């Protein structure tokens, strides 16, 4: 299992378009990607649930990646967060 934390920089938080692009990205991997904020969590493929976490600028979220290709998947997802959120 791979896990990292990320502090959101986008003023709106995780909004529709980046959530949608993320959902598409993780489809390329076998690993499951879970976005965790406090006690709530959502699978990265369920973009509406991800949006509904209501994560805002300044919030710290945890991203958990589990599966056979978790190393490379975690790298891709982390890079995506850094560039887009």
């Amino acid at each position: 299992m791979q896990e990292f934390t990320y502090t959101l920089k986008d003023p709106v938080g995780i909004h529709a378009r980046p959530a949608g692009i993320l959902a598409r990205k993780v489809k390329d991997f076998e690993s499951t990607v879970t976005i965790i904020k406090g006690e709530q969590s959502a699978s990265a493929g369920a973009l509406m649930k991800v949006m509904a976490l209501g994560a805002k600028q300044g919030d710290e979220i945890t991203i958990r990646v589990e599966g056979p290709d978790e190393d490379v998947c975690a790298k891709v997802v982390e890079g995506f967060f850094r560039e887009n959120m």
Partner: protein
Amino acid sequence: METLTGTTVVGGIAIGRIRYFAPFAYEASDAPAADPEEEVLRFEKSRYAVQDGLHDLYEKALNEAGEEEAEIFQAHEMMLDDEDLIASCISCIKEDGHLAEYAVVQAFDEAAAMFAAMEDPYFAARSADVIDLKNRMLEHLSGREQEEWTEPAILAAEDLAPSETVRLDKSLLLGIVTKGGSSSSHTAILARSLGIPTIIQCKDLSSECDGKEAILDGDGGCLHLEPDAETAKKLRDKKEAADRDLARLQELKGLDNITTDGHTVRIYANIGSPEDLESVLANDAGGIGLFRSEFLYLNGSAEPSEEEQSAAYRKVLEAMAPKQVIIRTCDIGADKTVDYMDLTPEDNPAMGLRAIRLCLTRRDFFKRQLRALLRASAYGNLGIMFPMIISVREVRECRALLEECGQELKAEGIQTGTYETGIMIETPAAALLADELAETVDFFSIGTNDLTQYTCALDRQNAALAPFLDPHHPALLKLIDMTVQAAHRHGIWAGICGELAADLSLTETFLRMGVDELSVSPVRILPLRDKVRNLNLT
């Protein structure tokens, strides 16, 4: 003839047949599916078809309206890939044996409710997107074809969803009238960008008007169905005259606001939200003299964050730079209230805890706006204006808070820019103290609507008072003159941003007083420029 009334979004006159855009109502039957596998297939086929359609809309919007308008369709397309949403639809069909339509209604309504329950206004508004998607899915599943428009018409509807507004062939739209909608709804945004006559909140509008001949009078805020010959002739003549005037006024774009004997005045625009920018630019405004910041507060279910505010201000500042943008700080209270502010009802709200009084009472709230303004100041030529001032002390307190916010931002390493500070002169007290007040600010802007109401002790909304209302009351003109002279004695400028600024019968008077700036709604700019260019003050 039948006449329906509503609220004007865009003025002007449209003459044509009504096309009623019926809202899509679908009664999902809970009858069992004959063949669940077949239903899943139907669901997936529709999902792909709707996604294809959305992709086409994205490209169409990208070409016609630009990236920002188009993004929503890309987001919609992606939302239909949501694994949870798909899983709950398929499980509803396979496990519970329902029809695809029923599954769509259940799953999409649940997702919409999830968003609607969110506090953040951005996410709460996504609920409408999910409903829009649900309707598109149901339309496809039920094979309901959209009727094509072939001739120009006035569009009538309950309200319009974003996907509906893009699908319309704009070249055939003469005007828009809706039963619901608000000035910040998609309908209003579309109407402003197209500049076609539009009225909203036309309560008595119904599908019965479909196909009828009509005249939409945007200036008068009404819709005449099957107009009689007299009304038709009157409005047709008015439209022809207006079309001629409009063509003539367009030629004034890019010209100076200068009298034949060389006096100049700045003509700025009044706006209520960033959506008005297009009209501001199209009408060649010299700047923005009054940007009412209330739209940020009145539209949502929670107070806008510092970031949201700052982003909205920045958008306007960047679009106008290097021209000046004067943003008036929050003027809520009195008749403009919102639930989350939890304001106590007052017996006499016009004289109550409103505008600067409310802001100085709730300083943390006020500071969030001041910080947002200062952050935005780095991106253009900003003027910050305080409303409802009655004393020098209030101005000092506002300035002290601004200073405090500036220090905080500096300590946080956030960049700010330079800006001017001004006040609204809209109480007799402020006009009488103009000399003292002029020493504390960079400019005055006279708000004639409130100044009239407070000077004459006369409620302008009360129709019964009409016989007593003199918009050119000598006391008012005297106060305006006093204010302008005081400003000039102290080397600051003075403008007028109330309705009177656009009153062409007073333009000469104002110029003779030495008014430096007139701020009017965007569509009044060119007529005012025309007036100024034909004046001679010698």
